[in-house]
């Protein structure tokens, strides 16, 4: 083991939603295989900054630590990503860590991503089943269709795609790539398709598909490699057909 090797971190801290942000530097002991979460856990155990002054532990969200729950999104060396899969060995030091900037800060690296979940509600991102009682099997699906839909269903609602989207802000009210991709997912499903119109209606007004400037940053940042731009294009085509149908009154 590399004795005495140090990991240097610069963390943007904020004690509360109204407080001014401040940078604080930390040094933690290096171990092979460690990730940013391990460094944050070390700070929590012995909260001292790089000057050796006692400080408070850095608040952050994390849960599964295997990049499937979506909790630990933060901006690391300028790039939004999941902290659990951010391995120290592959990061330039000092490692800068900031909260996602498109959501209100609660404390330090904890942000409030409720808007993302509200938007899933707004576009009715679900299959409207009749009830949870036994109605027999679901619709048959080809293996090929499953292989198209499954990657879309792996969205972990981390918000990284929104962080890099120039259009995701309070002014546009844009729902963003993650939510558009969910609309595509549910509109693909044999039962979900029956209600595609409702989801498309929700995307027709302000904050809907039209806000997308097609910067394509989202697809490059997605930790789950979801084909987000394909989804945006697919939903765009559906919206055109939907609008034409509505204009024709059918």
């Amino acid at each position, binding site marked *: 083991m590399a004795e005495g090797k140090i990991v240097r971190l610069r963390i943007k801290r904020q*004690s*509360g939603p109204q407080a001014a942000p401040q940078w604080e530097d930390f040094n933690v002991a290096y171990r092979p*295989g*460690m*990730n940013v*979460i*391990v460094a944050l*856990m070390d700070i*929590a*155990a*012995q*909260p001292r900054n790089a000057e050796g002054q*006692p400080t*408070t*532990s850095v*608040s*952050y*969200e*994390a*849960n*599964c*630590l*295997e*990049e*499937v*729950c*979506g909790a630990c999104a933060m901006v690391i060396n300028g790039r939004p990503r999941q902290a659990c*899969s951010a*391995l120290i060995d592959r990061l330039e030091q000092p490692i800068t860590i900031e909260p996602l900037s498109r959501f209100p800060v*609660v*404390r330090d690296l*904890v942000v409030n*991503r409720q808007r993302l*979940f509200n938007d*899933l*509600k707004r576009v*009715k*991102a*679900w*299959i*409207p*089943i009749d009830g*949870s009682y*036994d*109605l*027999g*099997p*679901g619709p*048959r*699906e*080809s*293996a090929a269709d*499953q292989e198209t839909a*499954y990657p879309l*269903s*792996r969205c*972990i*609602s981390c918000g990284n795609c929104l962080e890099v989207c120039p259009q995701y802000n309070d002014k546009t009210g844009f729902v963003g790539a993650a939510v558009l991709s969910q609309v595509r997912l*549910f509109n693909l499903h044999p*039962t979900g398709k029956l209600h595609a119109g409702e989801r498309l209606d929700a995307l027709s007004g302000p904050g809907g598909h039209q806000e997308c400037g097609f910067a394509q940053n989202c697809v490059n940042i997605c930790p789950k490699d979801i084909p987000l731009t394909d989804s945006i294009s697919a939903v765009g085509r559906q919206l055109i057909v939907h609008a034409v149908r509505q204009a024709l009154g059918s």
Partner: protein
Amino acid sequence: MNPKIIIVGGGLAGLAAALKAAEQGAQVELFSLVPVKRSHSVCAQGGINAAKNLKGEGDSAWKHFDDTIYGGDFLANQGLVKRMCEAAPAIIDLLDRMGVQFNRTPEGLLDFRRFGGTLYHRTAFAGATTGQQLLYALDEQVRRLEAEGKIRKFEHWEFLSAVLDEQGRCHGICAQDLHGMQVRTFPADAVIIATGGVGAIFGKSTNSIVCTGSAQSALYQQGAWYANGEFIQVHPTAIPGEDKLRLMSESARGEGGRVWVYKDGKPWYFLEEWYPKYGNLVPRDVATRAIHKVVFELGLGIDGQPAVFLDVTHLDPHVLDAKLGGILEIYEKFVGDDPHKVPMKVFPGMHYTMGGLWVDNERQMTNLPGLFAAGECEYQYHGANRLGANSLVSCIFGGFLAGPAALEYARNNRTDAGSHIFDQELRRQQAINDRLYAAAGEENPFTIWRELGRLMTEHCTVVRHNDKLRLADRQIEDLLGRYQRIRLSDTTRWTNQTFFFTRQLYNMLQLARVMVQGALARDESRGAHYKPEFPERNDERWLKTTLAQWDEAAAAPRLSYQDVDTSQIPLRARKY
């Protein structure tokens, strides 16, 4: 007004209960530490069991039932297990209707694969992220009901305790906002606990950070019985890490993956040699003990390290991507090697608790009237060892049972509690918080936690010795003593994670003693509980459910035992 049901926990069991209860007319309030979509159920990988018999193998609910009871070494009560296995095929159908992207056969039907402890293809799966896909389906349905005003979510809230009357009947909960940190009580006609696993008690495990067992422990200290706490599943194949042990699903072996080490310079497939019938798909306790033996007794770990190979390099890369993509991606991201090309290095890791809050054999109610439990936090369904892919089905079945049962209870027992019991509980919890803030000792909660994790992993997982268990219990008592001299590094009153962690730590320490003392008392080997001093199962003496009750005066568990329902499948020796 419709009856009000509070559900604590938004994983599969909590969401399943919320869905059924809301659908049947309850007003549901759903509490969770994290946005429910981020619950630990997302980590389940390999699949969900149901005897749909779509492979022409003659599988049946009875065979699923028999495999589950046998796999659990006859410690599970048979009534609910049988009902679960019978209900499982319809649960899969429902999930399918909700849009879960299960893998498909050429005919467009659900595909099934093999898992541990069975000879049948009984496991439906969505890639290797089945738990995530199932959780999302229920999350979406709950969001739909939330939009209809039938469910209200309280996310980022910590459960502190139940509000009980003098008779021990539950009338609501006391909880604390993780951000604003205000403590509040919430009345309800019935409460369902669905707070999952206990991994943090073992320091590092395959569990998520929120799986501390704190809620179960708080309830145990309020008089809820805790059953079979000593039965802890150690999964044979996990990737050791600094922060956690990352699971490598049993499905890797279900799809043909092989476990081996070098012996005399050649690969030795020890599971296949020792267990020719089940091969790499023996139940987890058996595989874990075999790996321990190979590494610690035979000294054949890879490069002398505690690790064995889990090898999928011989399998078709397209099949790997379509059926195991999710876990291979985890290995590649966190270890840096491509498992398509090089065998993975794995080692057993603490994974699951078979034990949990005691619930009755009919409707998931604890011994405290009005308090129900479902999912990993309760003890039914898995006996002394859980079979792979049975957890998802038990979570959903348990939730589906608990939701309507709690609603029926609530309809017949509307809460009439006076405000004094709420005031009293609120004051009790605030006093605990005040003491914690004021604590001016020298002990660091994280140091105590790491020591607890080390003790539990060393003495209360794969191999258990009475002298070491006795020592561990004394050392946990010492840790409890040190806890009294704790100091918080952060005493601010806003989103103070150190505060919450330290609060949970006390509950972890108390629940750890339940596990250790249960293991110490049980002088036999059964399922995941293995004592070299008592290598055989002893039905005459130990075909019993362990019940731990909190002894207020001694501030320690008091153990008693209850008969197991074995009315349908007669006992037989467990030999794979």
